[in-house]
């Protein structure tokens, strides 16, 4: 069965000053799949994510999301694409001056014409989904690191995104919370056919959730394929990555 391509990059090059961070990355990500971007620290994983989402302007190359070439779009057109996606930042990136409830309310209030009654229910549903029922009216400064991340996930899910981007979702979480998060990711994928692009190091988590692996090494694409293919890829760095985890 041919899968729908949801994100595609072609010869993507990104630089910090003269330093090439991504060197001609061409990858495809598919609808309804969990794509995990892997690699050692500093190999350009987060940079790839941020270049796809235009947070950084790529030096050259093409990025397509939902079949549209995003680098040519104006801000309004790109915002329409962003409304169909959600992003979970590494440290949550919640607005600190307002409560968790109001944080999740932002996209719903700004981008939909839903009534207060429904918005209120959606917010509570999303926070229930991430087990934060007790923290609805707390401010982010009153939350622990893991709680912040879960609240941020609720915010990212507020508009029922078709693609969810996560930058190290399980970093700093305990194994139980991390497993719960993985379960949620699998549920979202199965039930809503949501596509996910996840940057992570956590091997246990990768084994649970990954459909497809993109392995970067020093800014170059070393491997792209399914998890099983990755384990038997014959590429030393990729195999080493999975072997170290099975010590």
């Amino acid at each position, binding site marked *: 069965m041919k899968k729908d391509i949801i994100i595609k990059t072609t010869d993507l090059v990104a630089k910090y000053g003269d330093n090439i961070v991504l060197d001609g990355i061409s990858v495809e990500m598919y609808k309804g799949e969990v794509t995990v971007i892997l690699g050692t620290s500093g190999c350009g994983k987060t940079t790839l994510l941020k270049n796809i989402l235009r947070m950084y302007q790529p030096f050259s190359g093409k990025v397509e999301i939902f079949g549209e070439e995003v680098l040519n779009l104006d801000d309004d057109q790109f915002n329409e694409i962003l409304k169909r996606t959600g992003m979970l930042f590494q440290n949550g990136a919640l607005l*600190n*001056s307002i409560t968790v409830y109001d944080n999740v309310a932002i996209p719903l209030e700004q981008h*939909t*014409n*839903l*009534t207060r*009654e*429904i918005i209120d*229910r*959606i917010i*509570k*549903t*999303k926070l*229930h*989904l991430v087990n934060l*029922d*007790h*923290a*609805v*009216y*707390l*401010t*982010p*400064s009153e939350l622990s690191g893991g709680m912040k991340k879960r609240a941020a996930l609720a915010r990212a*899910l507020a*508009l*029922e995104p078709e693609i969810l981007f996560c930058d190290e979702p399980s970093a700093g979480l305990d194994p139980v919370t991390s497993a719960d998060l993985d379960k949620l990711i699998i*549920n979202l994928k199965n*039930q*809503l056919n949501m596509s996910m692009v996840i940057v992570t190091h956590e091997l246990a988590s990768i084994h649970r959730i990954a459909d497809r692996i993109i392995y970067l090494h020093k800014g170059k694409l070393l491997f792209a394929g399914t998890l099983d293919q990755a384990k038997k890829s014959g590429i030393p760095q990729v195999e080493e990555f999975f072997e170290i985890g099975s010590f």
Partner: protein
Amino acid sequence: MSKLSIKDQTLNISGKIVIANITVLLKDFDHKFGKEKISKLNLKDVEEIDGAGVSFIETILDRNKLTSESLENGNPTIMKTIEIFKTIKGESAVKPVPDNIFVKTGDNFLSFIKQIVDGLYLASDTIWWSITGIVNKKGRRKGSVTEQAIAIGLDALPIVALLSFVIGFILTLQSGFQLQKFGANVYIADLLSISIVREMGPLITAIIIAGRSGSAIASEIATMKVTEEIDALKMMALNPIKYVIVPKFHAITLTMPILVAFSILISMGAGLLISVGFLDVALEVYISRSINILAVKDIIITLIKTITFSWLIVIIGAYYGMKVTGGAEGVGKATTSSVVTSIFAVILADAAFSLIYL
């Protein structure tokens, strides 16, 4: 397209129940069936549902006081999505009720008292460690006093000079031409000398330093606090007051009097330009009158005042920095509060000095 219809108290829902169309669906429902009694929801023809769709279903259930048992005929995928996204009643946190005015006033008063007590503790600690720190230099980084003296003193010189010049200029213009009306031009030197040495010099410098260096002290310490640097110092068995605040305290105590002296000279210089240039006061007369009018007492009071102001600035900055809570937002708040409080404290202290030494 999604549709609603009702038959035998059963609400039939069909099509896609997703975030894009639930507003229309809910309006449709209110309009057509708002008053009808519903005892069952038939989901047989629902093609797709998302989290917001589940919220819609729950809203209808809630309004009719039904439970999820009243949902029927949904296919397994739909029912599983509902199961995942459903909220559980009674577990949600209760929205906090804001306190009434009496509770708030009482709280504010108590926290004000606590602030003063905490501030005094910090002040006493700082002054103690600063005095012992003159001889015992252990527990702080080498060269930190010089570093701070440059940051607080030398770097502030241009702005202090500029503002002092402008203030001297304005003061002379405003008062000089009034004196001229009575032919009392020559007294401009006395007037400037007294007002600038006793009042304007220390006050203007203190306000600039409170805004510039006080805010820098507060934000630096607050950032150190939120990034756990202060805790790290404690865990290395170092006293954060000795390591972080004392060098600033020494630096500001040394540099503020110099800055004030500098500010007085520049303001007097600006006065001299106007007086000699436009008010027909002879240069020698201006210089001799402005020096003769001053008593040693004036200089000593100015010095005491200056040092008091500098201590207020550094202690208030350090206090707000140390008591910061929350992340980056807390740092901003601490900085703002420190500037406002230290300017307020400086002016209040100035008023007190004026009362004591009339």
